[in-house]
């Protein structure tokens, strides 16, 4: 165990100390930030004013949607079925439907539109709704304290309990009245981007493992080392060490990217404020009753989403813990599986020029899953998407593309389970090829040869 740690340490340190690592660490986030910020910025820059019709069955949002710079709201008295039928003729860009809640307050809404819904509209609607809901909840909570003025108000507790997030489903409504699920640009960008990153990371660091194995072979140090450790330890040490380099790079990128994105969007938000709902009014009323509750409202005002920019709002709507968590899983396990295969290729050849013939079966599923990305984005729940996100060789890329759109848990679990099995199987095969291959010099291996190596005792 101590020895494999030594190997991991060497593989990690020699790579992290390289100048190229530093350059990549700085350039990566700039690129990533550009990829995140630019499409969102483009999406929010709508030249013409959008018209949104509102059908509010709950009745609590009457007159709450105020026109903003380029979104105009008007309320419809029709029921939702009639509104939908008339939608294509009405000339509106979107139809907002807030259904009557079963109990308490509503927490979701549906946006119908003929095309993909603009992020501006979604974000604005979400922010207005959650703001209003928080107001209502807060008023309800504060009523409990109005009767007894001496009762202390648990400020933080209340603040936490009123925090509300609103689900907004976006549905496409066709000319013929047919409905289909629609996704915002953000889901697509994120999905595609995450898939790209996985693809890129597996290739970049998988190839590093392969190059490392070839380096040990050509420099003839490999036999010196495997007289001290088992070939499997050397292989896994290298794979884990390089993987940690990848993880380090990724975490640095995420950190730096968030930094850059928040700075950029902070600048953008200066002239892109969403109008604030009048919290002040309620505050005045409450102040007379209970001074402590006024303080509470001050807090709510500061924390509320009203001041956030549209871009930040859109970014906040993504479930980042899930995204990053599953990214790390699919990146790591996918990488481990592919890296083992790359290591086997490195062990089987004498120089990088000979790798071509063995690289093909490894690169094809990886490239294929990226090529299929556009179909998957168009139909993230279709059968192609499903099967590609289950099959271990394609699942790391495909599943990451699907996750921002929402994937049933059982599918994610199945995909993860199969990927782990794929990793174990790949490592088992690779170890057999590797331990024979690294001792073969100047001999050109064929697939038949590899098959023999796998069967050696």
């Amino acid at each position, binding site marked *: 165990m101590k020895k494999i740690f*030594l190997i991991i340490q060497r593989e990690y340190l020699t790579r992290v100390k390289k100048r190229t690592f530093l350059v990549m660490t700085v350039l990566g986030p700039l690129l990533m930030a550009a990829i995140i910020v630019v499409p969102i910025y483009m999406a929010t820059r709508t030249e013409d004013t959008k018209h949104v019709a509102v059908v509010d069955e709950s009745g609590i949002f009457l007159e709450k949607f105020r026109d903003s710079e380029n979104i105009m709201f008007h309320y419809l008295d029709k029921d939702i079925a009639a509104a939908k039928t008339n939608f294509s003729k009405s000339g509106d860009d979107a139809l907002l439907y807030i259904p009557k809640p079963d109990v308490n307050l509503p927490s979701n809404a549906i946006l119908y539109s003929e095309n993909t819904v603009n992020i501006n509209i979604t974000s604005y609607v979400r922010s207005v709704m959650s703001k209003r809901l928080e107001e209502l909840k807060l008023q309800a909570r504060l009523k409990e304290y109005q009767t007894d003025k001496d009762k202390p108000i648990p400020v933080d507790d209340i603040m936490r309990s009123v925090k509300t997030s609103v689900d907004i489903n976006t549905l496409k409504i066709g000319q013929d009245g047919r409905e289909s699920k629609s996704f915002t640009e953000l889901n697509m960008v994120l999905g595609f981007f995450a898939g790209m990153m996985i693809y890129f990371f597996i290739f970049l660091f998988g190839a590093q493992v392969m190059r490392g194995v070839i380096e040990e072979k050509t420099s003839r140090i490999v036999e*010196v*080392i*495997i*007289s*001290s450790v088992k070939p499997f330890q050397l292989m896994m040490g290298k794979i884990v060490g390089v993987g940690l380099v990848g993880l380090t790079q990724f975490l640095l990128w995420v950190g730096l990217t968030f930094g850059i994105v928040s700075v950029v969007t902070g600048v953008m938000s200066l002239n892109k404020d969403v109008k604030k709902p009048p919290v002040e009014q309620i505050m005045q009323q409450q102040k007379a009753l209970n001074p402590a509750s006024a303080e509470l409202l001050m807090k709510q005002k500061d924390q509320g989403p009203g001041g956030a920019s549209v871009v930040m709002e859109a970014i906040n709507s993504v479930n980042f813990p899930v995204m990053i968590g599953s990214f790390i899983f699919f990146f790591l396990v996918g990488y481990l599986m592919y890296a083992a295969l790359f290591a086997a290729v490195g062990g089987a050849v004498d120089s990088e020029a000979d790798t071509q013939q063995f690289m093909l079966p490894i690169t094809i599923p990886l490239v294929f899953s990226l090529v299929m990305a556009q179909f998957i984005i168009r139909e993230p729940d279709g059968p192609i998407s499903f099967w590609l996100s289950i099959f271990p060789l394609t699942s790391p890329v495909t599943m990451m593309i699907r996750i921002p759109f929402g994937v049933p848990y059982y599918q994610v679990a199945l995909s993860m389970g199969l990927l782990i099995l794929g990793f174990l199987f790949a490592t088992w095969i690779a170890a057999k090829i590797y331990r024979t291959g690294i*001792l073969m010099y100047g001999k050109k291996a064929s697939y038949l040869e590899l098959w*023999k190596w796998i069967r050696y005792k």
Partner: protein
Amino acid sequence: MNIFSAQSVTKQYAHHKALDKVSIDVPENCIFGLLGPNGAGKTTLIRIINQIIAPDEGALLFMGRPLQRNDISMIGYLPEERGLYKKMNVGEQAMYLAQLKGLSHQDANKRLRMWFEKFGINSWWNRKVEELSKGMQQKVQFLVTIIHEPKLLIFDEPFSGFDPINTSLLKEEILALKENGATIIFSTHNMESVEELCDDIALINRSKVILSGTVRNIKKTFRTNTFSVSYNTFEGELQSLLPSSFLVLEESRDTDHRHAQVKLPDDATPNDLLQAMMPSVTIYAVNERIPSMNDIFIQAVTQKNPQTATIS
């Protein structure tokens, strides 16, 4: 006592048998030559001793008990195909390899500093391996092979890549290692160095041990009772002076003397040869022609039906 024994070790690859019931015994504190033509199976046997590959059949004993995984910390191995990480610092690399052999960070550092001092290569510590010459790299390689003070050292073609000066330096070091109690298994094609260094040998040909024992006894066994004589003042054929059972193999002359190689029958001694010659010629020198390891190697390997011979 034998430090290492292999008992009828067999290793089968897909289409050929690399080792066929190979048995060798390496006595403690000797230099053991593992000889054989290319492809005979030497490297396979060495890799089995280092537990890089596992034998299909047979037993391996280290210091009288079955060879275990932990024993690799008591074995030092300099493979024929050897090298170092080119982009890594010499010192860091030596530390890494020493620690892989089980030395603690402290011990590795202390010993390496001492050896670097001894070899006068302190200034190389922070240099990259690729900046060193081939010979310098070999020195570092040798050093990391012995740094953990192994009981058993295995050198596969250690002299390849060394110039004559470094070769003799290396020979001295090998002898010094033996002096300090280590056992050395030594695989080479260089028969001169075998003659110079080895106490025992095993000769492997076509996956089998065909000859093994101490160098002295093997040489004795391969004696052919042939003598070379230098003489003068005789112009005729030497054979005419000798009994017919004495065979003159070769005659030559230089400016001062005539020389001949004579093979004696098994029951004859050099005295018989001298007695026959003395009445007619003046004798300057008589030497027994002892076969060189080179001759023995060639003779043993080219024999039609190789018989396993253990000579003790």
